[in-house]
């Protein structure tokens, strides 16, 4: 059994947990309290396939998985600059992680799996202090092999 999707998501959690200064790390936790901040959370991904050819149902094909990563923090400083610094760490660590790149490349018979940064959005708001959150999306392009699931 080789479920590349789960392998990627599990590794992604390890990678984001290593971002300096994080107090808590979550997967699919929608409810974060302020004493857990700064927090990073990986949300399991939407997937889509671009294989529209008439092939047997057990054929291998490329899929694109797009997990969302949320980083939330509170600060007495400049929330925008701090979110930008966290974004830089996040992008660098995800795109350059050897294990993640090996997972997507190794899933493909031609080694053409890929990781791409799609973009991010931010939210800020006053609570007990100024809070900020950054949501970033990445696409993981890998081969789905039904016969190996």
């Amino acid at each position, binding site marked *: 059994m080789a479920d590349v999707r789960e392998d990627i998501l599990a590794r992604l959690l390890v990678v984001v947990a290593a971002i300096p200064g994080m107090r808590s790390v979550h997967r699919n936790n929608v*409810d974060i309290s302020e004493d857990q901040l700064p927090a990073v*959370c990986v949300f399991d991904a939407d997937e889509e396939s671009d294989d529209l050819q008439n092939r047997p149902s057990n054929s291998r094909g490329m899929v694109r998985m797009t997990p969302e990563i949320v980083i939330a923090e509170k600060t007495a400083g400049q929330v925008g600059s701090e979110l930008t610094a966290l974004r830089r760490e996040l992008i660098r660590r995800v795109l350059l992680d050897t294990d993640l790149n090996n997972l997507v490349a190794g899933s493909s018979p031609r080694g053409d799996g890929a990781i791409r940064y799609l973009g991010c959005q931010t939210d800020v708001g006053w609570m007990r202090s100024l809070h900020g959150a950054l949501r970033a999306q990445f696409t993981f392009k890998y081969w789905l092999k039904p016969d190996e699931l």
Partner: protein
Amino acid sequence: MIDYSALLYDPVYAEIGVPATFINGENEVTLTVIDDTRPKVLPAGSAEVRSVGPGAFVRIPELEQNGISRDDWQDASLTFNGRDWTVRSYELRGSPNGEELGEVRFLLKAASDG
């Protein structure tokens, strides 16, 4: 005309108001405030971050009687119920007797990074 200060605000503040210390520069006075700290949620994509939005109601006539004008509100320190806050903004709550006889809700932030 009903006197809302005498019939509404005074009894309410006497019942649920708490003493607070207001400091701005050399102004330091004791006021009666109503703690209005509320639950607050920040949407963060698929997640929500839960905290509180601290606030306090104060009667504007009481501020005026203590020599505190609107220019003194911003960035003032307000201590009540064992916590120290800083006024980061405010919203006026008019009364049927007019804005100057109504309340202000101070929007607060933690005085220290907490």
